[in-house]
């Protein structure tokens, strides 16, 4: 374990301040595309070893070790291999990948080229959610610049390595962020999750070996190639090394993107972000999007890394810190999130499709002031029937806000049921 001497450690976000940061010119002025020749001179397996040694873990939510994932790709199997970048960013609260691609698209592209070389892929697709046109525009322009410079296409930098890269715009479906649904969607189908196994590493895109990685994961790769694994491990914690973009949103004075070593706390981040907006105290927050169980003011010192969040009963998720102050009604917030899961449930499995429908009905009724205390038990029962029984993690995620809210704020649900709202201070949204 190394000391965290630095409060913020801009690596991925370092170039964002530079003028025209999205152009190849700026990128190259600031060490861009310097990892690529180094990587292409190495043996692909050395790169896989390097990323394993760095301890890099997936930034898309689950934290799977990236080097290990790459090593699952069978070699000399005679099949084409594919790299697919998950840029579907749709988990409520998550807003790191889109700014990254908008401000510094070449870092992702350089990461894609190095990763494709490591896993022996000659085709890479970046699947971007459709609703972010400017980001898609920037990515397309960056890809064209990369082709023109000989970083993409045939015989890259004279090494004999070929890679084609396509930017693929999605069409508005949160479930397409789930990696197997994303692959189905990329194949031109409805985005519904696939049964696992087989895993994408053996049967992914077009039933061929495929690596699916998040934007931030792959954008980290060029830095690891240049800096080495020890450098990367000098930031963060032993099992969750490296820098990470933390996205602060909601009732804080200065919401935004803060890149800090893994293990930073909300207290430290809040301090940098100027504290709670107008000084109104913190009530609840999510460590990594709405699918991660909420935290309260008791959790200000939880180290925000994979282990720290898990030990405190939640998950690091996408480090999307949505911060809500005392004016917000917890049952209302939970109702809104549940409406989201109901809308986004792909309908493939019954527990999630039916469960999210009933959860929404009950929560809406409670927020209208027409609930009864037994509804709380019903909510928990339904969550019990979804958790671990649905086909993919969307179902599990849908239960997180509800069970965690009832754990910490049961009294608020009860108060709504007892229809004594009149005696309570009016909470934003509680009567909407």
């Amino acid at each position: 374990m190394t000391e965290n001497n630095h409060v913020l450690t801009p690596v991925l976000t370092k170039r964002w301040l530079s003028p025209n940061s999205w152009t190849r010119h700026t990128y190259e002025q600031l060490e861009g595309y310097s990892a690529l020749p180094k990587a292409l001179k190495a043996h692909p397996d050395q790169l896989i070893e390097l990323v394993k040694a760095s301890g890099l873990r997936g930034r898309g939510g689950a934290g799977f070790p990236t080097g290990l994932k790459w090593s699952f790709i069978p070699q000399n199997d005679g099949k084409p291999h594919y790299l697919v970048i998950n840029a579907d960013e749709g988990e409520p609260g998550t807003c790191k990948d889109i700014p990254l691609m908008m401000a510094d698209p070449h870092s992702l592209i350089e990461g894609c080229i190095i990763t494709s070389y490591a896993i022996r892929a000659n085709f890479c697709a970046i699947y971007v959610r459709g609703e972010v046109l400017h980001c898609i525009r920037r990515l397309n322009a960056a890809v064209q610049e990369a082709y023109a410079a000989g970083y993409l296409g045939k015989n890259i930098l004279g090494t004999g390595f070929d890679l084609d890269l396509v930017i693929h715009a999605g069409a508005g479906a949160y479930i397409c962020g789930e990696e197997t649904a994303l692959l189905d969607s990329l194949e031109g189908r409805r985005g519904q999750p696939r049964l696992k196994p087989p895993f994408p590493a053996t049967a992914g895109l077009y039933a061929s070996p495929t690596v699916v990685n998040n934007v931030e994961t792959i954008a980290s790769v060029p830095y690891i190639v240049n800096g080495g694994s020890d450098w990367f491990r000098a930031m963060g914690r032993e099992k969750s090394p490296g820098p990470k973009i933390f996205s602060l949103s909601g009732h804080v004075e200065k919401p935004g993107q803060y890149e800090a070593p893994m293990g930073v706390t909300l207290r430290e981040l809040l301090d940098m972000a100027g504290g709670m907006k107008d000084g109104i105290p913190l009530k609840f927050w999510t460590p990594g999007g709405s699918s991660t169980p909420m935290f309260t003011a008791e959790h200000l010192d939880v180290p925000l890394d994979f282990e720290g969040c898990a030990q405190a009963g939640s998950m690091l998720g996408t480090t999307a810190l949505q911060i809500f102050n005392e004016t917000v009604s917890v049952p209302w917030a939970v109702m809104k999130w549940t409406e989201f899961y109901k809308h986004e449930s792909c309908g493939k499995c019954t527990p999630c499709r039916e469960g999210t429908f009933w959860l929404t009905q009950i929560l809406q009724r409670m927020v209208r002031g027409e609930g009864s205390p037994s509804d709380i038990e019903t909510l928990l029962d339904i969550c019990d029937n979804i958790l671990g029984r649905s086909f993919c993690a969307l179902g599990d995620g849908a239960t997180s806000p509800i069970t965690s809210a009832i754990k910490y704020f049961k009294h608020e649900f009860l108060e709504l049921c007892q229809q004594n709202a009149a005696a309570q201070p009016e909470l934003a949204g509680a009567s909407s």
Partner: protein
Amino acid sequence: MTTTQPEQSTVDISIFGDDIVEKAQQIIARYPVARSALLPMLHLVQSVEGHVSQAGIAFCAAQLDLTTAEVSAVATFYTMYKRRPCGEHLVSVCTNTLCAALGGDAIYAKLREQLGSDGKPLGHEETAGAPGTPGSITLEHAECLAACDLGPVLQVNYEFYDNQTPESASELVEKLRNGEKPAPTRGAPLTDFKQAELQLAGFFEGRDPADNAGPSASIETVRGAKLAQERGWTAPSMPDDAPLPALPEKK
């Protein structure tokens, strides 16, 4: 969508001219397997008609050698494919929890009122004005748009208008109604829904290269980077020539 699909051959797809056929073929050429072209091709279809019509479905089916039922099943799955013709502009207001708590619900309610008629607020995915005519606007509420630090946000034709209030949103929509095109907070100069769909299909030709510029990163985006710069905080410096690990022994 209708359950009784007309046969492909009976649907008139002549609205999709040679230029669109050519573009459809260019999309197909991007992928190792043709069917991957379907999502971008549906965006292309929307760039012509402002929604996915039966003709649009038949066109994609013909280009990709799929049945219309197969294409329909895909088109109806995704929120961005509209079943009814859209206005010149599509206004999407984020009403997911975080934006909603900061005023997104109030913004949506305000716009519904403003764009409604006969005292009836405009509904989700409904259009004020005759679809496609100048100043017509389709309104929708949207899920989290990955801009929560800039909330409450809305989009016009998928370009971002950050940190909105009911007043600023109302003013924006009024201008759109009057044929003005106020610049997005982050993004290219505003065009219209169909032009945006053409770009989502991957076609940027004919657009001003300066489109790509524009304000990219808002204050919020670069807050951490800026604070670090001000305080002199940096990541540990990289060694000059970090070695790569040795090649693992082959079993």
